[in-house]
């Protein structure tokens, strides 16, 4: 019983995610799979960003750079070198992690707005670099031959496979996120978030801890990039390094509750299902962006701590269950 109490936060989080993942498998409908794919992709990206944004308090506006770079490296290996999706995903994750490590050493010395500005700059610089990098197709990008999907049982099977791989990656992100939050390493991050100088005085090796948090938050987005563009069939610089996508990730984390494990899941689910509903609703489809904007405004005005933060404040009984 005490074990259940101890891990209640993780159990609730995994339970929520399981329900989400199982939905398309139960209905077996392709459209449910596609809708859930969009939501799960956001859940995984928002949860990855949460390790840096929520736990460490560093706002990375250009986090999509890892999604784009990983996607490009993996896509190149698949389309030009004929490698499998698995190796490509691994390479995408590693390249994003290495980039984060090198960047972390350099720009994590910056704080607040300066760090946020630097991350935007890095995303733009990477897009400009890829735009002029001929092996990756330059501005034309790369396209995947349709026959590649046959190795995975045809396009239909490949789309289901992408879905299950995405589900597995999302579980991994959440477990990592939970482990970080409940570990000594995570305590160090939370201390940095509250007061970096005080944390250093207390013995937290801030530069190292921050760099590893950055690396952890970059690896999965790199792998997700490969998976997304594999499913998409083509890659170009503009959609791969879309700044707008980074901002959406931040909104999702804030919506659900930054610094919590469950928050990014609820935030991403809420945001993407709202957008999906508005886009396809006969009444709202012409003004869906305006409606989404007003609803976000309402939420940010009235629930600034996010859904999970609000519930934790108001209903103390739930504090153990909602982490």
């Amino acid at each position: 019983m005490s074990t259940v109490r101890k891990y209640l936060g993780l159990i609730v989080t995994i339970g929520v995610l399981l329900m989400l993942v199982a939905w398309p498998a139960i209905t077996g409908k392709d459209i449910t799979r596609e809708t859930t794919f969009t939501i799960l992709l956001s859940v995984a990206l928002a949860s990855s960003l949460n390790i840096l944004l929520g736990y460490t308090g560093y706002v990375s506006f250009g986090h999509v750079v890892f999604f784009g770079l990983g996607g490009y490296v993996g896509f190149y290996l698949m389309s030009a070198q004929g490698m499998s999706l698995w190796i490509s995903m691994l390479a995408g994750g590693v390249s994003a992690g290495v980039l984060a490590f090198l960047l972390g050493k350099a720009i994590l010395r910056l704080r607040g707005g300066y760090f946020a500005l630097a991350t935007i700059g890095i995303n733009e610089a990477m897009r400009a670099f890829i735009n002029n990098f001929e092996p990756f197709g330059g501005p034309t990008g790369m396209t995947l031959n349709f026959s590649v999907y046959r190795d995975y049982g045809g396009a239909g099977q490949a789309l289901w496979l992408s879905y299950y791989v995405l589900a597995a990656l999302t579980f991994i992100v959440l477990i990592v996120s939970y482990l970080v939050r409940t570990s000594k390493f995570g305590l160090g991050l939370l201390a940095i978030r509250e007061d970096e100088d005080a944390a250093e005085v207390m013995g937290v090796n801030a530069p190292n801890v921050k760099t590893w948090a950055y690396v952890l938050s970059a690896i999965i987005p790199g792998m997700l990039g490969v998976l997304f563009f594999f499913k998409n069939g083509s890659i170009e610089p503009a959609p791969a390094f879309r700044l707008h996508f980074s901002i959406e990730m931040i909104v999702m984390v804030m919506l659900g509750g930054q610094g919590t494990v469950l928050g990014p899941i609820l935030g991403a689910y809420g945001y993407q299902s709202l957008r999906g509903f508005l886009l396809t609703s006969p009444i709202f489809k012409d003004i869906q962006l305006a409606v989404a904007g007003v609803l976000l405004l309402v939420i940010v005005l009235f629930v600034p701590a996010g859904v999970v933060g609000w519930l934790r404040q108001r209903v103390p009984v739930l504090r153990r269950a909602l982490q």
Partner: protein
Amino acid sequence: MKRTTLFLIFGYLLFALIFVACSSSGGDEEAATDTGSSDTAAESADSGGGNQTIVIGFTASQTGSQNVSSTRQVNGLNLWMSELNAAGGIALSDGTKVTFEAVTYDDESNTDRVQELYTRLATEDNADFLISPYSSGLTAASAVIAEQYGKVMITTGAASDETYKQGLTTIYQAYTPASRYLTGAIDLMATLDADITKVAFVYENDKFSTDVVDAALAYAEEKGYEVVLHEGYNSDTTDFGPFINKIQDAGPDAILGGGHFQDGSTFARQLSEKNIDVDFFALLVAPPEPDFADLGDAALGVIGPSQWEPLAAFTPDSAAAAGLEWFGPLGEEFVSAYEAAYDGEEPSYHSAGGYAAGLILQQAIIAADSTDPEAVGAALDAMDLLTFFGHIKFDTTAEAHGLQIGHSMVYIQWQEGADGLAKQVVWPAEGATAETLFPLP
């Protein structure tokens, strides 16, 4: 109390938004757009009595960077659909009357949700045929879905060649592919003056323009031209000074390139301000737009490729002369119907492309005498016809199935007319409305 007031304000705002939404969808129905919702689509599969309603699914960029071109494309398609439905649809030999209905969603001009929306169109809305979104990037993503569900998709507004070389079998391109966008300009240049030898390529560094210029550059070299400058610029470039200096140093006889409207027109204006002396100047996309004339003297003599022009004279006679079957309305009939339906707005080639995509599908259903996707696909493979949009014929080899091989660009040039600047078609020779103004003044 304060909180209650705030809630009330937001309540009113939401109510107002819902009201606006309802009234704006009402407005859509008044125009010639028949964009049915998914609810009506589900009921429409077969209403019996020898009548069949075919659902055509596509996404439109109602928001985002591609909004203007995409809207024109959708307007063209909707005009085709409303005209055909008003005329009673297509009559098949078994007596069935086939009419059409559209289901559409906003793709926001980005690839995030395109696959989700096309899956919805194919599986939930039971679309029988698909039309592509606007732009090559979105089309490439939607093509994977169309192919997976075996849905025939006519692409329009998607010029990139690459999509059609990936082993797809149900995708058919209405536009001239990017690789042949500027090659006609080089042919025209060759007929004008054999002394032109040095060519400069200055172009926007994006997927479409790079595809076009790579192919044109290879073609120019094959024709024996010396390429003295090959330079890409960023999409948001506003100062072309450094590029113009390089052009001056290289001393070309002809400049080819450009990208989209904004950069292309700025480039033309700055080139004219610096008085660069070249004989021949051709730009992508910008010159065919009516607003290009606002440049005044800087626009004079500039040549631009267009997928279609109202001036282009494709007629049943030219079809007979070329040994092709003619289908659909005349160019001027399309223009007047379009202007009547959309408050006098002049159709662009995007609009014509949207209408042509519908015509291609219509002719394929007539030729197949069936709405079965396989039969329609076979009819598309065999298609070889002339419409007001131009010649339509698809590649049927496994390497590039569906790639457009019949259609070719028309090239316009801005020349002095009776009331100021006017567009004239200068290439191909059989469609020309005026002699080329050469060399540039």
